[in-house]
């Protein structure tokens, strides 16, 4: 498999098919990076997925000035890869634990929520809804992936998707509300 830099170079040179190779390469890189970071963290600590994406960017894309197109390809691939990693993980972890939310007896420590438990459920529900959104509305779904899984700002997202910031903001408002409504 070619490495990410080569693939990005190919994209920069106008090789459209190279984009297909990007996702597996980025996915693999993120997976390794996560493993490496985890080996350095204390057990029980969590990694910030979006931070990983940015770290991967530095490692893979580096300092060279890339054009808008290859950056765009990279972040789309990274957001998608991160989504897959997180969803696979949530599926694995779920079942072992139930959901949790603090009970109405507001005082007691025994009844404080286990946030991770809850987020697995929520994440899987979000993912389902996101897949439905992608069926009808690819660009808004991509926007959500970039914002949520790669942690990009509205401005960065707008640049990558090649739309204005105002449009990105509008799309985000709608997609976000749509997803929340869909999750119910």
């Amino acid at each position: 498999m070619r490495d990410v830099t080569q693939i990005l170079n190919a994209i920069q040179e106008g090789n459209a098919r190279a984009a297909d190779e990007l996702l597996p390469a980025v996915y693999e890189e993120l997976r390794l990076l996560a493993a490496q970071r985890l080996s350095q963290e204390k057990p029980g600590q969590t990694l910030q997925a979006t931070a990983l994406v940015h770290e991967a960017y530095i490692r893979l894309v580096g300092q060279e000035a890339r054009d808008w197109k290859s950056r765009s390809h990279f972040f789309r691939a990274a957001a998608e890869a991160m989504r897959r990693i997180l969803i696979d993980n949530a599926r694995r972890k779920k079942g072992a634990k139930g959901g949790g939310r603090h009970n109405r007896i507001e005082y007691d420590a025994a009844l404080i929520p286990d946030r991770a438990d809850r987020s697995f459920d929520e994440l899987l529900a979000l993912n389902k809804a996101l897949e439905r959104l992608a069926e009808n509305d690819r660009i808004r779904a991509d926007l959500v992936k970039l914002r949520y899984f790669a942690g990009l700002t509205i401005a960065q997202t707008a640049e990558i998707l090649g739309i204005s910031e105002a449009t990105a903001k509008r799309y985000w408002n709608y997609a976000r509300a749509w997803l929340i409504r869909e999750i119910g």
Partner: protein
Amino acid sequence: MARNDKNNEETIFDAAIKLQSGPQRDAYLAQACGNDSKLRGEVEALIRAHEAKSLLDEPAFDLGVTIDRSPITEGPGTVIGHFKLLEKVGEGGMASVYMAEQKEPIRRKVALKIIKLGMDTREVIARFEVERQALAMMDHPNIAKVFDAGATDTGRPYFVMELVKGVSITEYCDKNKISTKERLDLFIQVCNAVQHAHQKGIIHRDMKPSNVMVTQRDGKAVPKVIDFGIAKATSQKLTEKTLFTRYAHIIGTPAYMSPEQAELSELDVDTRTDIYSLGVLLYELLTGTTPVSEEELRKAGLVEVQRMIREDEPVKPSTKLTTLGERLIDVAEHRKATPDSLRKLVRGDLDWIVMRSLEKDRRRRYDTVAELAADIKRHLRCEPVLAAAPTLSYKARKFVQRHRVGVITVALVMGALIAGAAAATVGFVHANVQRRRAVSNFERACAAVDEMMRLAQRSVYEVPTIKSGALLQQDIVLKAQEFYQGLSKTNKNIPILRVKLAGTYQVVGESCLILRDYEQAEQAYRRAVGIFEELMREFPEDAELPSNCAYCQNGLGLSLDGLGQDEEAQSAYRSSLDMLRPVANTFSFGTPKELGPVVNSRFVDCGPCISYDGLSLFFYSNRPGGFGRSDIWVTERATTQDHWSTPVNLGPTINSKSYDAAPTITADGLMLFFESARSGGCGGSDLWVITRQTTDGAWSEPANIGPNVNGPDLDGAPSISADGLSLFFLSDRPGGAGNWDLWWTSRQAVGDPWDTPVNLGAIVNSPYLDQTPSISPDGLMLFFSSKRPGGLGYMGDIWMARRETVSDTFGKPVFLSPPLNSAACEVCPNISADGATIYFATYARPSGAGNWDLWEVPVLKLQPDSAEELNSSTLGEPAEE
């Protein structure tokens, strides 16, 4: 979904959210949707979603993944230039540090730091070269030297440094239980080192505990600052394109990053940047935590991290200590102190020194590190510190910045205080002294109100446990007490000061009840009662004083109960009731009693629900023997005259690994609703139902009552009507009066879908915490628990709202008189079918097994004799502001 519909929906949604909610938006929706009610419903759902919170609001963060490890390139044995790696001595997000052996030109052991991230190696080394001369000029016992920089065979930059064998300063201090004073001594040495570097023109840029190592020399602890010059060499040139790159650095240690660094403008960093980071380090040495915790930062995305660093005012170290809860004991122990002595030590000078270093605007920080160190030395010598004298106008401005909402009230209080202080001193004090006192009163008022506001902002239920909540409350209230004591001595003619002072004793009494310190509680309540009685004599017309006094009398009764002084307790309860006469005429209860050791455990026992035949009592508990965080249990009796049996768990089909709570049952005993946070719901906690064919049959598997009712967040504490057709519950969904509100939904017949829930409205719900609704068997009385004013104390009391018929709306809730309610906390009321007994749960009443316990109280009179009587129960209404 057809594409066109969607376009239409989106267009209407886009336009609608730009309009203010209310008539304007409604009118637009009516016009845009016409008579397409489905479209309108969909758009309204979108608008609700738009206004709701969601996990989408912060980037995905939790990656608890376990994957195979990647190969490591360098390791022990690898030769890099003149150096042979011996063993790894440190590892960070950005670099690995090895102990290495140098053979020539001199034989010595050094530390080799290899940068991991893919950086432009040439550029890193070039930038290092620029500073090399300056670095070489540094010669200080508390600075580890940096010798050289180079590139590994794999092209990664590395730095060669003096080998420092030791641990980070925070780890060293905690491991060896170093006292605060000794910590300050170490910190001064660190300051000296940084000052030395600053004089040579070197800014560290990355001061954090892991860059301050402590070694032992001749039995003495010596701090050594490492990594001078490295942050600068490895920082990137900043452009839009490298924003992401920079982010990777930020996530390393944003906790110590100054606001100007968070701006990502490299040009703007100067020596005062190090002062900020030193301030964070000092903060951590004092309190064991950074102003913004690592966890908070980890959850936030890039933009949010930047915003937090630039804008969020840190809380003072001494205040931070009070928020640590149980952890405070540990933190204090690591400083050879008790929680109290540590707080006292940090409060004042050290607070100010830290806050001065952490100013967002660096012009307000110390100008040099030497000044910072000098101020700490002044503190150690008990001399006034420079940091403690911010000007009045500066302080007032800061105050206004932080508390825009409360400013008007504060200004009023200030005005009254300064006027009062001035009036009291006219004639015998020199004008200058008078002014100074007014100013110092102003400042003290500022500080006290400031603290109170913070407490108010941090709602009590965010504190991890009720006990730590009580400790926190005490700490802050004692401060206010001191303040009002001082002021009311010199200002006898301002009665409000005495009311406030008594109020502080009330709250201290409350927290003492929770902590089961009955002697202290008695003292506090006695003082409060004394003040109120005096005031009542002076101001017999005042309507609020008797209810305040009644509350303190009741608290006094509880304290005396706790001390085993029965007779005195009874007399206090009687005085309390006398003062509550109007309500006591309407309602009357027998003596409350806890359900005893067979039923109550020393764990949480809460949410009682009595079956209509009075023979089964369902409740929830986290006692051992359950299947999850809390489970539903049932206790039974053969006749209503018998004792309750040992509770039985409803079993693993019904109780999940998560929270199962708040059971409520229909009249026929065949349908039981409850709250559960199990998976498979709509998010947060949801309402679930189980059914059975006969009262001795087995329960079905739980079913979620569906997304018509259950929202994404908290839905809980259900109460089902006798016929199973109306369901009252608690929810934090948007559209309420604030905090938690009570909602209800209904259905035509069992098996029909539930209607969209409706908020019980502003007559029933208050902006305070309203919870645990319970509908009476006849459907005409709604009991619930609330923290609204007008009850006995602030912990929560049981209230009741009434309606004429089941199709009416509920009237204004009234407070149920003692002894059902008390100065302690009462929740989860549930009235028996014959109306003779109210079951409830309580915390901090002196008897009982501990934690939350189940109690019962005989109902003597719940119906008013006449309409006037009901109206005369003025005490039961929240005080109008």
